[in-house]
């Protein structure tokens, strides 16, 4: 099933890229579509932050991930690069689990 998902994602994502380069600008250049393509990543990524941080399976949970996420936010405010943000979050959660 994972391989199927990989193939579907790869085909879908590639075709979306190719469509942009190939289709005349005006065909899909509708203000609503433009705004939608701008907002979809915001909505999906925000939902992914919430679900990945505060749920386990079908249960809502609060654990060491919250501290990791908080530190990630601080790192982002300090304009830290991506890899630093991710490692800082992981290290914070690991440290809390080690101590608690």
């Amino acid at each position, binding site marked *: 099933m994972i391989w199927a998902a990989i193939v579907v994602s790869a085909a879908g994502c590639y075709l979306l890229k190719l469509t942009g380069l190939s289709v005349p600008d005006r065909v899909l250049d509708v203000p609503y579509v433009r705004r939608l393509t701008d907002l979809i990543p915001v909505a999906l990524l925000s939902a992914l932050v919430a679900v990945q941080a505060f*749920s386990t399976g079908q249960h809502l949970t609060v654990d060491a991930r919250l501290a990791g996420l908080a530190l990630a936010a601080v790192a982002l405010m300090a304009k830290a690069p991506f890899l630093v943000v991710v490692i800082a979050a992981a290290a914070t959660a690991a440290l809390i689990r080690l101590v608690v």
Partner: protein
Amino acid sequence: MSVPRLTLERRQLVVDSLGVGVATGASGFSFGAIAVASGLTVWQACVLSLLVFSGASQFALVGVVAAGGAPLSGAATAILLGTRNTLYGFKLASLLHLGGVRRLAAAQLVIDESTAMALKPKDPRDAPLGFFTTGLSVFVLWNLATFVGGLAGNAIGDTATYGLDAAVPAAFLALVWPRLDSSRKQVTGAVAAGLALALVPNTRPGLPVIAAAGVAALAALRVGRRDRPSPTDDESTQVSGETGR
């Protein structure tokens, strides 16, 4: 006299593009490690980086799978996130002027970073240089880093001990952070996050994230309307001219 100036600008563009390539490519390490920690094999992580080659989409697929969601709902999330690359393509088509096989190859390089570096130069003739330098350097490094990260993830073992499960939401936060540049987007993000959490106990894993796309569809509708202050709002006394009394 414009030739040496142009050369300098082009050289600076190459340096900047390679800088973006190194920084973004290195993030592939965290993708590889997280993918393997989420239950994918190193090969699956590498194939994703080669063929999907879009960070947010890859993290989304892996994140949904890690949360116990159906792999195909992960794929749906990945594809929804990939729609923005279509919009980038529209902007790039008139700058790159590509046809045939070159267009087929260049399409895979259409990502956030290569688009940004193609749009950066003042002279549109420099757009291909920014696009390909950034796109190719990210592509090479992102794939190498994914492989190394995957091997590291395999070697680590129990991932919760090392906080890799906390790295996943942090990665998504880092991806969404630069996009939250207007109050409209901040509200959209907050509502989407709230809706997704509300759906978690009652739906299959993976679906809450896809449902969040509905929030974007509604928010995009409302952008066009003028927001007028509500007449029943007590705070609006100053606006309504009652301040003269």
